């Protein structure tokens, strides 16, 4: 068990910088998820921690020791790959014990460890099968078992659930969380799926273009994203961005969305946005769950408006409604009984207590 620290880690391929100076401190026992779109450098970062890629600059420390030049086998890490990378000619037990056998552990201990890991993952009865005879979910468990028996300082997961179907992915997600609760090994987990990131992580690291956009707990990222990228990447359906401007109407700041629609800023927010130049092009960021059907009694900060719906998507427990607003397509979540219909006008309300305001040019959240 150990903490992992990255200090200004850079990875260059010839001319291209895949990772552009990453600083990250992962505490002991922590479960950290690196998330971002493909090509953001998250996998490269993980592979540098594993020692599968050389680092071009900076330092990586595992358990306080700099491991820049330490070969993977001496870093005391275990890795789970996207395609499982099970040795096809070995049985489940042999797959799981390969590392221990290479290190010449006593047979009895190997057996004890394999049995324990197999029990933990509920694959005891598969122990003598070859990978070919296993289903995708079972292979995934074996790959995790192979990591667990090593009892390493750090677990590294490289998009381990991407090859599974949606249902199995949910199930394995829970499984991974349970395993982590049991073994408490420091874990770095890479995924492009923000749902996986939110559900698994103690802390999420959002990456884009080889840089860290934001580090925080899932709730922090969801409720106070630092950049437009994080705001749009986290949450599904994604946050709406509506072009807007701040103007003063009778001494009170208000936010203008279109010629017809302008809302007064909620009192709590007014002070925060006071200093913004009135000429700046801004974006109103608002999550779909804060665009709902208008209710009969008014609440402070919840502003009703009229919209003509383009499309509605009944999801069962809610209905997603899409409508145009000042050139942007906006998504809202309304009660299925609210009577939303394709092409029909509807009275909606925006909860500005949960609004975000972004600079359209820099993407910074103000």
């Amino acid at each position, binding site marked *: 068990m150990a903490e992992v620290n990255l200090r200004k880690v850079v990875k260059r391929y010839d001319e291209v910088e895949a990772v552009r100076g990453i600083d990250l401190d992962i505490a002991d026992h922590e479960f950290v998820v690196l998330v971002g779109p493909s090509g953001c450098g998250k996998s490269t970062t993980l592979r540098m921690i594993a*020692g599968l890629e050389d680092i071009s600059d900076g330092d990586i420390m595992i358990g306080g020791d700099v491991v820049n030049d330490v070969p993977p086998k001496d870093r005391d*890490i275990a890795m789970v*790959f996207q395609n499982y990378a099970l*040795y*096809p*000619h070995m049985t489940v037990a042999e797959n799981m014990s390969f*590392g221990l056998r290479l*290190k010449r552990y006593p047979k009895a201990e190997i057996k004890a460890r394999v049995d324990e890991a197999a029990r933990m993952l509920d694959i005891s009865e598969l122990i003598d099968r070859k990978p070919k005879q296993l289903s995708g979910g079972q292979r995934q468990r074996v790959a995790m078992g192979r990591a667990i028996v090593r009892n390493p300082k750090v677990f590294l997961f490289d998009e381990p659930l991407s090859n599974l179907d949606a249902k199995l992915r949910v199930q394995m997600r829970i499984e991974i969380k349970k395993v982590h609760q049991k073994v408490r090994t420091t874990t770095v987990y890479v995924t492009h799926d923000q749902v996986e990131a939110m559900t698994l992580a103690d802390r999420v690291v959002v990456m884009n273009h080889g840089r860290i956009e934001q580090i925080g707990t899932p709730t922090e990222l969801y409720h106070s994203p630092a950049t437009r990228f994080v705001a749009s990447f986290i949450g599904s359906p994604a946050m709406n961005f509506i072009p807007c401007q701040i103007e003063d109407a009778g001494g009170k700041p208000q936010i203008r969305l279109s010629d017809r629609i302008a809302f007064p800023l909620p009192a709590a927010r007014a002070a925060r946005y006071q200093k913004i130049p009135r000429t700046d092009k801004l974006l109103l960021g608002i999550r779909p769950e804060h665009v709902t059907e208008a209710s009969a009694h008014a609440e402070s900060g919840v502003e009703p408006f009229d919209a003509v719906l383009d499309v509605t998507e009944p999801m069962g427990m809610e209905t997603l409604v899409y409508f145009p607003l000042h050139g942007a397509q906006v998504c809202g979540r309304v009660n299925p009984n609210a009577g939303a219909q394709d092409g029909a006008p509807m009275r909606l309300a925006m909860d500005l207590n949960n609004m975000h305001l972004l600079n359209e040019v820099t993407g910074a959240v103000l």
Partner: protein
Amino acid sequence: MTTITIDKAGPTRKTKYGSMSRDRAWALRWSYFFLVIFAIFFLTPPIYMLITSLKTSAEISAATNPWWVFHPTLDNYIALLTSNQFLRFFWNSAIVSIFVVSITMLISVPAAFALSRMRFWGSTVLGTGVFLTYLIPETLLFIPLFKMFVVIGDWTGIQLINRWYVLLFIYPTLTVPFCTWIMIGYFASIPKELDEAAIIDGASWFQTLTRIFIPVALPGLIAATIFAFTVSWAQFLYPLVFTTSTDQLVMPVGIITTLIKGDVFNWGQIMTGALLGAAPPLIIYAFLMDYYIAGLTAGATKG
């Protein structure tokens, strides 16, 4: 074509299906008909070998139906299998082939591993070079090679010409490039994550090769082994050039140079010898056909 025009007249779906299966049945019958004809063409020589090998010299020179054995006998087989000379040829062939297969595998498997997984200076050039070498036929090199070994003999006093073991130096030029090439193909098809997993599990490069790559690419290894064996067993030009004494000859050359004595052709024994010479590759083929074919097609479909 005619059946198709007829079905167009038939309006219902049912007849259409019926005539389609009738079409297919005819296509099938024609396929079998031609396959039988080709099989006869392809199998006549080996079958004729077998027929002749079961005949006495008297029956061969009698003007009877050559396609039938009237008085079958195993005399030819007994004569050859008790002849020290013939057994010597067989032994020479066997020992040369086994050594060549071992040498080939020892050279080509590590080289293929290095070329498919570990980049080093000039490795891509070498990969292409290996394939080009495979395209160089033995008929281009036999004269300079012969002269080279004569010169080596003159300089060092180590006489290699007319010794069966000179073939152990020569044959690998035929087997190694192709075996390396197909092993590169097989190794390249192993996912990269598999060796990364092995490295994280603590395996060295050598252990990754022996404990992961070789077992996983075993079918390729078998195909390459079969190829190396059949090539060295069947090679005719090099032993013809490099060996002359009867105790140094391998099977194909031995049969041709000793059983054909001047104008006297003892065809019963020649055919028996040819059949026995063809037996090891045929037996391997019969048991490992899929590997044999995989190796054959690998050259063009892999890499």
